[in-house]
């Protein structure tokens, strides 16, 4: 059971530069999204969300059928499908194929699924060079860090950080303009693309009726990773499935707009199998890795199953008041923000980071912007209930339960309530702002203390509402 990383969070909160970076980046993404979904920019955006939700619900409720259909269609187009129960099997497959095919260098395009299984570290241990090619991911790979945000991985780095990282690791002349830095990355990575034997991509969508994967990006690195090397592997969580290519007319319209406010990202690739006879270029071999790694566990719970609808747009992060303060690295897993708060406990078990679903004000901004309408606050509440049940089994939370039992007893008895209220207002009168905190240390029991560290109750007024009401009624001549 991991405790809440209080010190790390405090250090994020007190870092003014970082606070500014998170705040301004997420604000810009929110603003772009708002413009892109306005009625003058697109017809019936809400109708598209409703449709996207209905399709995802249907696909997940019939996951077995659509996965088998997908597999059949990938094979029919000359590709191979590799089913992996967990991270270990996926890593093993890539390592083994690399050895069989004499692969020395791998280029990779951005993929949260491969972050989830720490693929790069494992491949490097296996003696294979693996290069991230998305600019943000490349910066983080050189700095040995994890992504800070689902769509903007290096959101926390300034151009000066990037200058430091590039000069130190690439031994290039120091440049501080993002334009020049991008050119440095283009030059270094172009060489890697041309000489790599294997390209690894993720998949934004898996299309059952077409046996295809869809990649959405802006830089061109996913196109290069999937087209330049002689072998392509796409690694995808099995929940990425949608039934028909025609459903992309819905999903592509909501994904780019929700993520970065783009009607379409610069490149959208729809890929199915290796290069065909007659086609000039493209990979000679195509493998699709379908990874479970805990996803079927989520499927069992009907209420929380909707967590699998996520299309990883990052909008819930940008709009979350918690993410916007604590940033991405204080969440326990690569998936941060509201979506991370609901999927991490379901993948790892609720007792691993029991504080996580409670780190929310349940304001609902996340579900309001979610393009597939996941009811994130509802799932958070269900997870809180699961955690409380799990704790009860271990005998924890007794004081809290007793306190609430006493509270409910008093609240249901008007006389007793009035007595208690009268007593309360006589305790430390005039200690405004820090009323309970001024109580003797004796009363600072651990659960109460935790609660009081961030808030307090206002001191009760000298005369209660009930007393005032009675006086008023008497003055009117009532009872």
């Amino acid at each position, binding site marked *: 059971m991991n405790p809440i990383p209080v010190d790390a969070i405090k250090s994020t909160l007190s870092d003014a530069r970082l606070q500014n970076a998170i705040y301004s980046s997420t604000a810009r993404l929110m603003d772009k999204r708002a413009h892109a979904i306005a009625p003058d920019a697109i017809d019936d955006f809400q109708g598209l969300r409703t449709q996207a939700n209905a399709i995802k619900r249907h696909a997940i409720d019939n996951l077995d*059928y659509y996965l088998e259909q997908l597999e059949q269609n990938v094979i029919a187009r000359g590709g191979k499908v590799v089913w992996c129960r967990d991270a270990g099997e996926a890593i093993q497959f890539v390592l083994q194929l690399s050895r069989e095919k004499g692969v020395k260098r791998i280029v990779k395009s951005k993929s949260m699924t491969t972050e989830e299984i720490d693929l790069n570290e494992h491949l490097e241990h296996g003696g294979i060079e693996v290069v991230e090619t998305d600019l943000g991911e490349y910066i983080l790979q050189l700095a040995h860090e994890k992504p800070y945000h689902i769509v903007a991985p290096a959101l926390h780095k300034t151009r000066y950080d990037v200058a430091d990282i590039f000069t130190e690791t690439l031994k290039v002349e120091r440049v501080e303009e993002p334009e020049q830095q991008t050119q440095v990355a283009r030059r270094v990575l172009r060489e890697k693309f041309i000489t790599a034997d294997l390209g690894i991509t993720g998949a934004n969508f898996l299309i059952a009726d077409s046996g295809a994967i869809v990649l959405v990006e802006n830089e061109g690195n996913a196109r290069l990773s999937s087209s330049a090397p002689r072998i392509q592997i796409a690694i995808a969580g099995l929940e990425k499935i949608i039934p028909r290519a025609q459903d992309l007319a819905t999903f592509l319209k909501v994904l780019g707009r929700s993520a970065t406010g783009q009607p379409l990202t610069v490149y959208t690739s729809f890929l199915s*199998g290796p290069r065909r006879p007659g086609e000039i270029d493209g990979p000679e071999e195509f493998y699709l890795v379908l990874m479970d790694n805990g996803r*079927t566990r989520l499927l069992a719970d009907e209420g929380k199953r909707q967590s699998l609808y996520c299309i990883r747009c990052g909008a819930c992060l940008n709009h979350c008041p918690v993410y916007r303060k604590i940033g991405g690295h204080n969440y326990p897993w690569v998936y941060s923000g509201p979506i991370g708060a609901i999927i991490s406990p379901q993948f790892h078990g609720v007792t691993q980071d029991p504080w996580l679903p409670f780190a929310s004000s349940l304001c609902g901004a996340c579900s309001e912007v979610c393009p597939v309408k996941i009811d994130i606050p509802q799932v958070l509440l269900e997870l809180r209930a699961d955690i409380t049940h799990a704790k009860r089994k271990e005998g924890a939370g007794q004081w809290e339960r007793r306190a609430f039992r006493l509270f409910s007893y008093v609240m249901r008895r008007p006389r007793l309530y009035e007595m208690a209220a009268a007593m309360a207002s006589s305790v430390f009168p005039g200690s405004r702002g820090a009323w309970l905190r001024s109580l003797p240390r004796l009363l600072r029991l651990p659960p109460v203390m935790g609660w009081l560290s961030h808030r307090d109750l206002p001191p009760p007024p000298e005369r209660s509402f009930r007393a005032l009401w009675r006086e008023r009624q008497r003055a009117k001549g009532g009872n």
Partner: protein
Amino acid sequence: MSAREEILTRIRASLGRANSTGAPAGLPPSRIVIPDVPLERRIEKFTAALEKLNGKVHRASSRDDARDYVERLLHGRTAVTSNAPFVAECGVLTLPNVKPGGSDPLPLRGMCATLDAGITSADYALSDTGSLVMLSSNEEARMVSLLPPLHVALVPLDRLLTGLDELYSILPVPSDRTSSMVFITGPSRTADIEQILVRGVHGPGEIHVVLV
């Protein structure tokens, strides 16, 4: 039990059924709405959408006009062309410093990696978003629109569709036609460093579409 069988068994157990139940009922109909937009309006929308992304659009009155535009644009820069018949029909191959890419992948890649521009046609264009739709084939290689810093596409006007909905009604299963369908919407870009927009990351930083 193989991983495949075990995963499918887990899924069915989680969904509360023992066996495969065949094609499921209740799939919502796809949401395809194709508005009737006159050609002139489609051209306007395409131009506005692409220019907003810093792409350039030229409306050519004839194939000769298209060729002249490409000549002025290249201004001596080197270029490789795809095998699309329309590119040849426009006479682009008669221009100085323009070489045909051919169908041999290795030499083609070498040209794409060293020359200044890639000249292609496009199978379709989408006016809503200013996108080109490129299907990989014996006419169009993947690399010509990807490796050179400048991409020029010559597109006959009758290939200009309204948007995604119309495209997916024409190609309901794109993989029946090709292993790779790519939408190109503006120049390659990133905002990964301080959210500052930079064009020309791995793909072309400059894109010109000539509507003929």
